[in-house]
């Protein structure tokens, strides 16, 4: 029988589900044509409530397994809960005015975000393959739908289709991997599997095939090379706030799964796979972004590169505390800055997302200094300039890599982060060093958008100036993770 503590361990998910379903019902009751802004505000409160629930859940007495070893609440899960929920909150806020502006003002949007967040939250706390799979599917399917939310726009539909087809394709690989892992270890519990793989003197070769396939599936979700290939197309076509959402929250959750499934089932053979994936991702992402002319597409490549940096942290997970805490910190920082950047892009997008070319940002520094300054800040954070979260994120990652003596990986990484500064700089250059284009409008920043930007700005700054608290928290996670 589930105990009260068990329910608290899934309290954020419950809150989100209830809220999401309520949104759905209200949506059904609202007459068509009526503004859904209020509904969005309501949904935002749902995200806030879930954050509160997570905070409540984070108390030490609730740490532990729950619901028949299906999930586990610990620093790790709570941390990713926070990331997902804050991203969800920011996404909802930035969508409040975006949706009516794009004439897709449907309440389902908010419900999908909230319910999708359930999946992502569960991904971070699930320790059972079945639950992980279902959670992954929830997050994926909601993302597929959200990507196609501007369904009258061909790009949006195409983005959705591509995401869906390739996502399902990758999921099948993942699933096959899970099946083989189940066959090879006889268990579907992550901790049991880790124990089996860790102790058995002779691991069944099937297990290697299994983890390889699981890595394929998850690598696809986190968009690391060579499974990154869907990212630019999908990000370009999807609505901007959705990109903000799906480039961060499901990704962070997928990283959480990757950590739980791959890193925790520590196999020495991982190292070079991750190493190569990291190098490939960084290079492909940074080089690919150079020639892009669409901001969203460019940031899609950038997200590949950032997945690469994160993989550097994984590669150094032989020192658990360093590698995993660095990866966690990176996820948080990346979420904060990327959401911020996409918030500004959303603001700039204009009706039908017409204005997402780099050219459209010409002279933004003159037209709208504050917006330009904010975007510059996020871009600098993505480059990794000090006093931004992006800097400390990179710092922790490379410091972990160096402490585990991954000299070359670090050198490639820092070289990449230097090289990568070029394309972010291009956007900054456009904003400040080019004359404004008259045809591009700069709509006023509404309250919701302002809040969304403020949240990500504060988070990025906070992570950049006072990273202590967060880092301390992340450093608690690996120890718990390791105690099977």
């Amino acid at each position: 029988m589930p105990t009260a503590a068990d329910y608290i361990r899934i309290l954020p998910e419950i809150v989100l589900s209830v809220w999401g379903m309520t949104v759905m019902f209200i949506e059904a009751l609202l007459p068509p044509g009526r503004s859904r802004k209020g509904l969005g505000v309501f949904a935002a409160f749902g995200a806030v409530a879930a954050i509160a629930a997570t905070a409540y859940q984070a108390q030490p007495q609730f740490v532990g397994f729950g619901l028949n070893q299906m999930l586990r609440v610990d620093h790790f899960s709570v941390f990713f809960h926070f990331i997902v929920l804050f991203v969800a909150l920011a996404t909802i806020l930035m969508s409040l005015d975006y949706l009516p502006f794009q004439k897709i003002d449907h309440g389902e949007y908010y419900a999908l975000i909230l319910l999708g967040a359930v999946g992502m939250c569960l991904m971070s706390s699930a320790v059972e393959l079945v639950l992980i799979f279902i959670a992954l599917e929830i997050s994926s399917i909601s993302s597929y739908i959200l990507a196609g939310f501007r369904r009258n726009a061909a790009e949006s539909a195409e983005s959705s289709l591509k995401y869906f087809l390739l996502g399902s394709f990758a999921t099948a690989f993942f699933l096959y991997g899970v099946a083989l892992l189940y066959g090879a270890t006889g268990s579907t519990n992550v901790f049991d599997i880790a124990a089996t793989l860790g102790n058995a003197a002779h691991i069944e070769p099937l297990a290697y095939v299994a983890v390889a396939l699981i890595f394929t599936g998850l690598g696809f979700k986190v968009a690391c090379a060579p499974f990154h290939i869907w990212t630019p197309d999908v990000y370009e076509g999807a609505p901007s706030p959705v990109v903000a959402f799906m480039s961060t929250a499901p990704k962070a959750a997928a990283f959480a799964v990757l950590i739980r499934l791959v890193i925790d089932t520590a196999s020495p053979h991982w190292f070079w796979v991750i190493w190569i994936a990291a190098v490939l991702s960084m290079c492909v992402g940074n080089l690919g972004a150079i020639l892009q002319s669409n901001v969203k597409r460019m940031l899609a490549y950038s997200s590949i590169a950032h997945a690469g940096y994160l993989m550097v942290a994984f590669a150094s997970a032989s020192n658990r505390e360093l590698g995993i805490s660095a990866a966690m910190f990176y996820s948080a920082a990346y979420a904060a800055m990327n959401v911020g950047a996409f918030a500004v892009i959303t603001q700039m997008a204009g009706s039908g997302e017409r204005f997402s070319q780099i050219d459209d940002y010409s002279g933004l520094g003159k037209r709208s200094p504050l917006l330009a300054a904010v975007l510059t800040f996020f871009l600098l954070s993505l480059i990794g300039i000090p006093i931004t979260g992006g800097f400390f994120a990179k710092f922790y990652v490379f410091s972990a890599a160096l402490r585990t003596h991954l000299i070359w990986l670090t050198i490639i990484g820092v070289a990449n982060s230097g090289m990568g500064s070029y394309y972010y700089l291009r956007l900054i250059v456009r904003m400040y060093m080019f004359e404004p284009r008259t045809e591009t409008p700069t709509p006023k920043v509404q309250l919701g958008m302002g809040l969304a930007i403020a949240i990500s700005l504060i988070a990025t700054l906070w992570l950049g100036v006072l990273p202590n608290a967060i880092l301390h928290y992340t450093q608690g996670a690996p120890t718990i993770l390791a105690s099977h």
Partner: protein
Amino acid sequence: MTSLNLPFWQPWLIPILPLAGALINGLFGKRFPKSLVASVALFFTGASFLAACVHAYVLMHSGAEALEVSYGTWIRAGKFSVDFGIYLDHLSLIMMLVVTGVGFLIHVYSVAYMEHEGGYYRFFTYLNFFMFFMLTLVLANNYLLMFVGWEGVGLASYLLIGFFFLRDSAANAGKKAFITNRVGDFGFLIALFLLIQHFGTLRYAAVFDVASHFSVETSAGILTAIGLLMLVGACGKSAQIPLYVWLPDAMEGPTPVSALIHAATMVTAGVYMVCRSNPIFSRAPIALLAVAIIGALTSFFAATIGITQTDIKRVLAYSTVSQLGYMFMAAGVAAYSASVFHLMTHAFFKALLFLGAGSVIHGIGGEQDMRKMGGLRKYMPWTFWTMLIATFAISGIPPFAGFFSKDEILWQAFSSTHGSKIFWAVGIITAFMTSFYMFRLIFLTFTGEYRGAPADAHSAHGSHDDHHEPHESPWLMLAPLVLLGVLSIVGGWVGIGNRFEHFLSPVIQKVSIEQNAAQNNEATATPISEGAGAAGESKVLENSLMAVSVLVAFSGLGLAWFFYMKRPELPSRIAARTEGLYKLVLNKYWIDELYSAAIIGPLVWFSRVILWQTFDQKVIDGSVNKSAVAARDVSQIIRQQQSGLVRSYAGWVAAGAAAVVAYMVWMGTR
């Protein structure tokens, strides 16, 4: 070393007074009337001369050999330090008096000469500025401070040569002078570094003290290196081969400048340096020999060019180069006192010659070509007579000043332990040529008929054109001429009976090779006159040599008279017959062209085409840009994979999965 107890007449005043003049004129002169500018310049220069006289008097009567005062540290780095200090001994005393004295006279002269030029205040600022640096040079108590003056006079020279900066030739000449001097300074600098490295100090007293413990270097050693490098510096400043090229061009400057800087004072700085460094040179016979050879060569070489030149100032310029060569030769045979003696007399008569030439140029409206002069004697008698005195002096005709110093040099070249008959022979030939071209100048300029066109046709220099007839210069210009004329006569008398040598003996460290070889101990500093031990027959020899030199001087005069008075058509015929040689000499052996074609041109070409356009832009920056292009190419390849086709993407995913699977299985089952 003693310090003088004079409350007001501190030695630092000597250089600082002209500086004050320069600053006042420089900062406010633009708003001053010309008379005030001139007064300021004259006052401060005169005061400096006065101060110099006072200090000369005090020093001579104090009985001290030298006076050294330090006014605090200038540069300090670790253990190494350099002071602002003044060192006054008999050598610097002579230099100081020459500089301030002749300098003052030239200032006076300039007041009138520059009357009609623009930039009056600028001129006097620069001139005072020059005085300051020149006095710093001669009064410094260490080599670095000497270097300050050394570079400073170079700057002043640069500014004054380029005074008529609207003329490209003037601007070019100034730049050429500065850069050529810098080449010399390069050597000087290295010499300083060697001194620092091996002596740990640049103070004269300390350096010479240490140097006195060195034995004479029979093969090249550290002192030789220092000496040779100093020689490079001296060559630059004193216009010796191969760095003499700037001096003739420097005649682009106003004539008083030529007189002061490029004849009387600055160019003798190299001689001063060599003499000042005699404790080093005397122990480095190889360096000394190099000095002598360069001096001899230069004196001869410049004299040949001087014969053919037609520009009055250029003749004087080459004569200066030649006379400086004389001084070097003297220094090179360790006859430092003779060298300084000639330096002094040369200052008088060469300044006089230049001022006279200036007076001529002034009088005929800016023309400098001797072929367009002639017969000026009747228009400007004062100028003629004073210049004639100077010409006698430079030709070495007794009892004019040049005779004594020149004769001393020739005798020393002949008889000194470092000397050689070859040097003497070169000196005699040069003396002959000197006499010849100097009288050629006199005859061409002052005798015969005036060949100049009406003066207003010569408005090239633009400022004297209100005079239509050649005319005598104002008294303000003539007074210095007369004074210098007197000095050119009597200036040499101080050398009679080796008095000058005695006077300088405290400055010259005596180094005897035999003594060194035998005992290898420190050189004695006891003043022994070189001539004191000479035997009677040596006296006979000396007198006969003197007779030869006088004879040579008169034969030069005679030849000049023959060519330019008696048979004026002859020179052009000879020139026509020996056309190749004549052209060669007339064009100064094509040395300027050679430098330009062999050094400057290739250097600029190399810098522009090879270094900048090829290496910098194509290789370095090109590779930087290429790497950017390469990044773009890679980016393009990566983009191309993004074909937009779902099935391709799936292909990537499948292939990636296969690769990961293959790797994992391979690793796992190994």
